[in-house]
């Protein structure tokens, strides 16, 4: 549910998607041969439902006509193209997966992204779609898509560094 909510940014749409996924799961239960865990299987169905939902929503929304050149990203750099704040060393990032609170911090950072940027990024990284599929779903150009993914990575990296890795929240070392 949290996963659906993150992607759709709308509680009722997220609940619908989860419900549809569960229905589809019940209908398809006989075909489930036990080749993956039930959880993986359900998340797989949910992903399809979310893609359907995003597709529907982008049909209803007006197309963004402006070319996204990522001007807002200039703020991350000085005029001569250096990082305004250079990325710091992260101590033991892999251990974060085991630490309470890391995924909450990640979720908060994802929520702070612009809506379409978060959509494009979760379609790419959580659902593993290729960029041409994402462009088609969101009806944006390929280069727009790359700029969006770049923005998501720049923003998330900075956000996690600020709120998790350098904040020392719940971390030892």
């Amino acid at each position, binding site marked *: 549910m949290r996963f659906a909510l993150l992607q759709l940014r709308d509680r009722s749409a997220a609940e619908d998607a989860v419900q549809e996924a569960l229905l589809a799961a019940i209908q398809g239960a006989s075909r489930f041969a036990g080749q993956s865990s039930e959880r993986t299987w359900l998340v797989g169905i949910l992903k399809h439902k979310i893609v359907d939902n995003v597709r529907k929503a982008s049909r209803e929304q007006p197309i963004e006509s402006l070319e996204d050149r990522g001007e807002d990203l200039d703020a991350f750099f000085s005029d001569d193209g250096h*990082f305004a704040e250079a990325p710091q060393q992260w101590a033991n990032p892999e251990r974060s997966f085991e630490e309470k609170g890391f995924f909450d911090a990640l979720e908060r950072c994802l929520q702070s992204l612009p809506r379409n940027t978060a959509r494009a990024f979760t379609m790419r990284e959580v659902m593993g779609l290729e960029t041409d599929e994402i462009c088609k779903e969101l009806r944006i150009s390929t280069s727009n898509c790359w700029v969006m993914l770049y923005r998501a990575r720049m923003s998330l*990296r900075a956000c996690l560094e600020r709120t998790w890795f350098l904040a020392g929240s719940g971390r030892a070392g």
Partner: protein
Amino acid sequence: MAFRLTCKEASKLISDGMDRRLSVPERIRLRLHVSICDACTRFTSQVAFLRRALKAFPGRDDPEGR
């Protein structure tokens, strides 16, 4: 773009490289830049970490289905 990349150009190529195949000149220029730039070396491993974190994310949903 001059032959030598700035961090701004390099970080965009690092990100693009996760979504498309970079051209040979792009890869050569990126490798040259990253080999002498600590900030972009960290950036590279941090965006790779982000990819692993996002892959692990859905499985971390809380059990009561909030």
